């Protein structure tokens, strides 16, 4: 024992050599509570699934913190993570307002933020730390408008959009995309997330002579709109925003009420027949007892790309950031590559429900909508 003691002490004092198996830290900062809890939980689950199954030779530790729905909580969580966890990358909130507060701080620290937030401004601020693994409104809104106008031949849409950044940004891009297709909405109405009775807005759409509803609402309001439109017999086709594709949204609506409802999204893992996506979906169901959505898959793909960077030798935040900015990554939902500002996703799909169940069918893929290939 006396001979062993110096060796034990030496082992304790000397730093462990930096080998490939040294753990790297990743922080998961997402909204688990509040009005974005569904989306944030999907983000969390996608990130956890990726981080629990790192590539060979990579050991990763991670901590999860709730950012709720205020920038204040998100910034506090970020500063705690930066100071106490020293992460090489951070799974960051879907909530754009939080991201706008976090991005400058992460930029000063040089730590990449991996997000599925759709807020366009995020990648327009000149920071090089935001990496978005979900198509921006400049992609998905174009897909939504094209599908409505070119495939469904709709010409007099009414737009209902949320009063949040998600709603306002989506509304702006949707109107622009429709304009480029020569269509002007007959009604554009902002809906507060707290409003439960959508019938007045739906009746105004009917009175305006709308031939369709284009939605840019969060999960709960989307479900309410679909149910109440069915309830008053509005009979208009609905092309919704990405919230509609979430299984948790569809679960709030009767299958029959979903007939004729379509939605834009980045992917639809629960109904995607490709084998690797199906394997992901099965693992997700088994682990979390829930259906995966595009946010979960986007966050999963994002974290997988971070782990690929680490496996390739990028072991500092700066190295991971540089790797993400430079390489293409074939994820499950799509192939990701930066457009130079951190927008990694450039494809969109349209899913529709046939009324026989709550699982959507992928109706059309729109690849490289923004021209980035």
């Amino acid at each position, binding site marked *: 024992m006396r001979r062993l003691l110096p060796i034990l002490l030496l082992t304790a004092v000397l730093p462990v050599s930096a080998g490939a198996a040294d753990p790297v830290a990743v922080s998961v900062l997402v909204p688990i509570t509040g009005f974005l809890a569904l989306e944030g939980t999907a983000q969390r689950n996608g990130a956890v699934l990726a981080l629990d199954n790192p590539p060979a030779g990579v050991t990763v530790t991670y901590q999860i913190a*709730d950012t709720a729905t205020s920038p204040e909580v998100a910034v506090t969580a970020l500063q705690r993570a930066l100071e106490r966890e020293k992460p090489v990358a951070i799974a960051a909130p879907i909530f754009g*307002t939080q991201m706008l507060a976090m991005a400058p701080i992460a930029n000063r620290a040089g730590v990449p933020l991996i997000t599925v937030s759709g807020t366009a401004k995020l990648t327009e601020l000149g920071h090089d730390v935001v990496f978005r693994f979900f198509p921006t409104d400049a992609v998905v809104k174009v897909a939504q408008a094209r599908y409505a106008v070119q495939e469904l031949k709709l010409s007099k849409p009414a737009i209902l959009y949320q009063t*949040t950044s998600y*709603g306002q940004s989506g509304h702006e891009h949707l109107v622009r995309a429709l304009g480029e297709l020569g269509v002007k909405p007959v009604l554009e109405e902002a809906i507060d997330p707290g409003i439960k009775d959508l019938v007045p807005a739906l009746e105004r759409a009917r009175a305006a002579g709308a031939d369709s509803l284009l939605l840019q609402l969060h999960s709960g309001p989307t479900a309410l709109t679909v149910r109440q439109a069915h309830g008053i017999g509005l009979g208009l086709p609905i092309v919704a925003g990405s919230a509609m594709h979430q299984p948790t949204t569809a679960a709030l609506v009767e299958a029959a009420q979903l007939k004729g409802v379509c939605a834009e999204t980045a992917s639809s893992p629960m109904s995607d027949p490709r084998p690797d996506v199906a394997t992901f979906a099965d693992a997700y169901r088994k682990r979390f007892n829930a259906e995966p959505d595009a946010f979960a898959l986007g966050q999963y793909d994002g974290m997988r790309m971070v782990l690929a960077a680490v496996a390739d030798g990028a072991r500092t935040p700066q190295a991971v950031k540089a790797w993400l900015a430079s390489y293409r990554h074939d994820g499950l939902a799509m192939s990701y590559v930066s457009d130079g500002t951190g927008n990694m996703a450039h494809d969109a799909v349209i899913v529709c429900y046939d009324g026989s169940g709550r699982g959507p069918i992928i109706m059309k893929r729109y690849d490289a909508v923004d021209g980035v290939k």
Partner: protein
Amino acid sequence: MTRFDRRDGVYLAAAALGIGGVVIAGDAYALRIASLVGIYAIAAIGYQLVFGRLGLLSLAQGAFFGLGAYASALLTVSAGLPVPVGLAAAVVVPALAAAVIALPIARLESHYVALATLGLAQLALLAATNLEFTGGANGIYGVPPIVTNSITIGPLDVGSVTIAALVVPGGWVTLISVWFGVLAALLVARAVTRGDRSAVLATLDNAPHAAAALGLNGTTARLVLFAVAGGLGGLAGGLQAHGLGVVSPAVVGFEVMVTILAIAVIGGRGSPVGAVLGAALLIPLPEVFRFLEGSYLIAYGVVLLAAIILMPRGLDGWLRDWFPRRAPAVPAPRQSTSKRPGKPLVVQGLVKRFGGLTAVDGVSFSVPAGTVVGLIGANGSGKTTTLNLISGLERPDAGQIRLGGEPLFERPAHHRRELGLARSFQHPEFPTGLFVLEVAAVAAKDRAVAMAALGRVGLADRATSLVSALGAAELRRLDLARALAAEPGALILDEPAAGLTAEERAALAVLLRDLATAGLAVLVVDHGMDFLLPLSDRIVCLEAGKVIASGPPETVRQNPAVIAAYLGSGAAA
């Protein structure tokens, strides 16, 4: 100036502990939490003035917080002005907004205050979310920090010694700025509530009828406290904006208001230092429970609930149980040199209707200076309503009241005290947590005059007792002392002898006679004929709102109408 209290030592120790903790941790995360505690403490100190001191459940403090944040962000980001200018606007703009809403809001009763201010907060949230210049739902980003880089102080040459330069990192500068704000907020809160202002505010809050009768004008107090609260809320919001770098509609959201309210309650309602303690407990708490992941809010809620159950008066109230407030210094009693002469009270044709019921129907009588007039009648005959009309708590439908020849009809209650009218109540109200001397001094010229009034009612030796320690009879005497301390020319008393022993009634009768002898006009309502008839120079008897008899006590006692309506057949014997 309030004296140093033993609790202040506890607060200083807690502050030293907090500073030590931050210095030891020392990283940006610890600095941020400490800054957040300071920011919410400032907002809650302001809120204590409205919620704690005025007793108004305003739900607009969160909106003032947001208004300050937006004001500072707009000026520094959109207009490119320096941060100090932005912070100045963060104080001034919400203070002005608060002053504008103060008067209409303060006229409302408790739950209507909550509803009205909640409506205003919702309007602010809608404006922040939907207006273009506020940046919509994304808000305003790129708000500059208070300082961008470290600050270097020195080197300093002190005589032959050179003190090396001190480099203060930016995070520390922000923290120090915020806590200077806390100190300033505490000083402002102390300035607007110092001395007898605190007792005045407590009386306005807990004893509104007494406050009106004592001539305490709540309008100015409400205006000042609302404006100060708004300004402090705005300052907190401005500091938050520059600390975060972003202002979004979340700063106007209800969650901010709930946080401020929770801090005020947990800290101890009405206590500025309690607000700091509450913020120091509540703001870091979610961080402590982060390891619980999705369940941390449950743990947070449990602690919050436990704190409310175990410390219903908050941290400051709990500390007050251990370290009671020191009793005020007792001055030598002194009658004011500017004591008013007695003033005759004349009532002419007074009418008051409540819907279809005419409670007072053409009542006329007079109370000459230097006399005692007794007002009698059965329950419901209109006696208390008459007193309420005279003291201004009710507005007559017709008639006139004159005090020393001055018409009172158009004057609010608090003006009548200035003219020399004071009253006591059948069920006197007192503010809680005050000492007897403080209560008596609330409408007095100074505490020496209040001591003289306490001496007249036999409560001088109870001056340093808490009001809560007084018995029912003592409270009646305190009510009378409070009225006498205002040095009135006419005094109206509503059942002052109710519940008193025979000895106390006799002493009270002597006192009232002395007051009349000193020149006061004294009007007394009482049911005790053995007390009132020997005391009074004249008696006025009411029946169904009308005067059915008036004159010397013996004459009225023999009046058949009075006997039939009130005294009964045995009284005349």
